[in-house]
């Protein structure tokens, strides 16, 4: 699935989740931010990450 298709699918999923959680009115109010977030989620999901890359929580120690 290309990025744009994945984004469209994510928008629908997020919109439905927002309606369930906050109601239709809030989901509508958040529509623009949901679209933006869906794009970011699609980018993160598609970007290749090394299999052994750990999550970074804090900065590295001083050299």
């Amino acid at each position: 699935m290309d990025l744009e298709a994945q984004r469209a699918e994510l928008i629908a999923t997020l919109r439905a989740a927002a309606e369930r959680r906050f109601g239709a009115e809030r989901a509508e109010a958040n529509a623009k931010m949901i679209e933006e977030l869906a794009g970011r989620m699609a980018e993160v999901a598609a970007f290749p990450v090394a299999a052994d890359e750990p999550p970074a929580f804090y900065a590295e120690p001083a050299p």
Partner: protein
Amino acid sequence: MTLHTLDAFDAARAIREKVLSPVDLVDALLERITRVDGRVQAWALVDAEGARAAARRAADEAARGVFRGPLHGVPFGAKDIFYSAGLRTEGGSKVMAGFVPDYDATAVARLKGTGAILLGKCHTTEFATTDPAPTRNPWNLACTPGGSSSGSAAAVAARMIPLSLGTQTIGSNVRPASYCGLVGLKPTFGRISTRGVMALSYTQDHVGLMARNVEDVALGLSIVAGHDAHDPSSSRSPVPDYLSALTLRRPPRIAVLREFFERATPEVAEVTMQAVNRLARAGAAVDEAKLPPTFQAVHAAAALITRSDTSSIHAERHAQKADLYRPAIRAAIEVGMLVPGELYVRALRIRSQFRREMRPLIERYDVLLTPTTPAPAPEGMATGDPQFQTPWSLSGLPSITVPCGLTRSGLPLGIQLVSGNFTEASLLSAAAWCEDILGRASAPEL
């Protein structure tokens, strides 16, 4: 020279030499605030009474030869998300209306501990996100000063204070500093304690400093940097003597990051390249460098991390007071609750990968250089585009902006310098060398 134009280092020296009274300095700054803040609106709260009392104490001590530290008697401002004992701290939000902390944020406490005087609290966007503060840019009142540290930047630029504390989670300290013609530092993640600062992200919140020159920023950092037992994310790495580092000024090895110039307006790219050419003519070794592949994903990763963190931090307040939030932060909190855990962790792994890939580039040069912002301060209330700060907020690498000129319409622009983790001493030294070549920004006419 009028007192309100004194920079922090010069004011501290004059007080130490007993040619300036902290009382006169505080009075001059309060008078300046009375004169210009109606237009600039940098202050959420001015503690005139408290500042005058602190100034009298500082003056008495100075008369007896007692100096608490390098900023004895020098006033500063703090963004209104820094806790200040006994002073209203509302974070620009109705949600926090009337909140008065009973302790000082560590950064505020450390400055006060060296004799500095908290003059008041500077306006912030709501909870340091995007719903704007009322503050205007002293260089052009029709423009934003940037955000979220809007008041911290405008107050220093308008000569209402010589030094201020801001914060940066995405682009909130370096960008407003640049929009207002200031030097602004976002140090390495963990270099300055965030205890007592209203949080936005667990892993991207940084305390920053703003002043009108590099020396004042170095002086401020030397006071507020260092481990804080109350902040588990604060680093235990030793704090070097940042002021001594400034005496070691030499032409730095600079890597120009072309990707940023391509994303800037033609005028910003042109002014910044003119500055780079001046640095090269003065002896800097200038190369061009490419960012590693993971740069493509840093903005998306940062967005997911901050959205999720903000939701987590505000979840309880949102459950009780959702209607009191302004629209942008309310939407950010609600939408952030929808980020799947798997993607949040993947974003953290992208951050790790970006840091790892940046290491060889960072080690090859003293500093990386970009325009600080893709465009000058925009007109209106929106606080501008933070994209040139995002990679360094995400990765925790330190960055600093130094003024480099004005647009044709008279708005300040800056160069942004970036270096390795906990290399603030050499970063400040390189910034000071660049400042020597490029000159300091003039004062805006108000």
